[in-house]
């Protein structure tokens, strides 16, 4: 079963961290990636740009409008994610807990129901 481990970014929290704490979170991802790669559970991982770079597209094909992201005011947003393929939801929770920084930036675990 595949799960998306969504890292909830909170800019206020992030700004309040010391440089050492931020380095620990950012640098620690490497080790986590190595762990889930070695266990054969890594499918993909991506980090996303700040929502200030978001655009929102609405309408029908051929008649759509593009506006700036409506999420600028949101307190938390998806900062990045890991897509893992693992044995159980319990294992997915265990993997999420291994992501560095969950004491500051919580991780949401959501099952994937369609892939192509």
């Amino acid at each position: 079963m595949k799960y998306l481990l969504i890292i909830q970014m909170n800019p206020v929290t992030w700004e309040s961290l010391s440089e050492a704490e931020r380095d620990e979170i950012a640098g620690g991802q490497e080790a986590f990636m190595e762990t889930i790669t070695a266990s054969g559970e890594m499918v993909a991982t991506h980090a996303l740009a700040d929502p200030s770079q978001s655009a929102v597209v609405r309408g029908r094909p051929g008649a759509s409008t593009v506006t700036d992201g409506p999420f600028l005011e949101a307190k938390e947003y998806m900062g990045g994610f890991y897509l893992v393929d693992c044995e159980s939801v319990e294992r997915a929770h265990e993997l999420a807990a291994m992501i560095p920084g969950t004491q500051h930036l919580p991780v949401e675990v959501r099952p994937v129901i369609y892939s192509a």
Partner: protein
Amino acid sequence: MSGDGVVEDLLRRSAPLVLGALVRRHGRFDLCEDAVQEALLAAAGAWPRHGLPAEPVAWLIAVAGRRLIDMLRSDHARRLREDTVAGDPSAHRLAPAADDELLHPAVDDTLELLLLCTHPALSEPSRIALTLRAVGGLTTAEIARAFLVPEPTMAQRISRAKATIGAAGASFTRSDDDRDERLTAALHVLYVVFTEGHTATAGPALTRLDLTAEALRLTRELHRLLPDDGEIAGLLALMLLVDARREARTGPDGRLVPLAEQDRRRWAHDAIAEAVDLLERTLSTAALGPYQLQAAIAAVHAEAAGDADTDWRQIALLYGMLERRSDNPVVTLNRAVAVGMADGPARGLAVLDSVADDPRLRRSHRPDAVRAHLLERLGDHAGAREHYQRAARAALNQPEKRYLEERAAGAAGFTGAPRG
């Protein structure tokens, strides 16, 4: 079957024989498996162009055996470099081994391999991947595609699984204490592979390996090896019965058609006959188990001329027997449906209420789906709609989600008249 299809089929069938012969001779499951995989790839390249060898299995054993000797030599040399202690007992194994006894194995080790692949130290995804490769003869790329994960992920999962059982000293000489448990685990692996193929939610179907067919083939093989085992026969019958409904189960554009609304003329009646025959022979001779009971339930459905003719009382009884043998609340949910059909929805709801608080069902969409169905039959359309909607939100399978959303819309106003 095309020329390539013939070669592919032959390679898959030969894989466990070749691997079994090598492991029996040399131990070292991990290295043997690599050697066999290389031989299969070599054959897949050579045979379609140059024609089949006279003795394909012997050809594969000879090629894999030579590759294995190379690997053992380099492994041996490495160990000598690392550890200068003389008299390594594995040295005597380095002699060329392509003799007649090896090339024409007298025993079929497929079952032993299957049991090795369900080593207790392995996670379920690892057991599945390893079984499909070592016993099923599939390539890593094929398995990765089937489960929609990147090939390096699957390769890593397989090599780690091999290292795990290699470290445990995997060979065929282990004690047989846990044989029954391993066999149960192997059946579970085959069942999960079948279910994955059966409920596949992803990818263009044509480019995916047919996991259902693969699970059926391996279960058939297992039944051939252990014909008197009731649970193997039961699992085979169950797969045949479920697979017999394949054509009728999806409508145009992949829409899920529930059992009650399926066109029974589209069921594979020869497969049903085979399963029923298998089940009748088994139920009279072997010890009863959960797969046989599930197959018996599927057979009751299969033998009804139409949904209205289904013997729901018999099905409720069989679910009751299954309930006493397994601690699984999903069985009780199924019994609630059957009781609802046999004795009326109110009685079904009472059964449902008995498991409603089971923590194992907390995230499941099934209790809501069953409740919605029973409420709909009671005439409580608002309640049905609400629970169909909840079930649809929680469903982890796209066609099922869509089906539940449609039921929710259908329960909105109009009467509960059966559709389709």
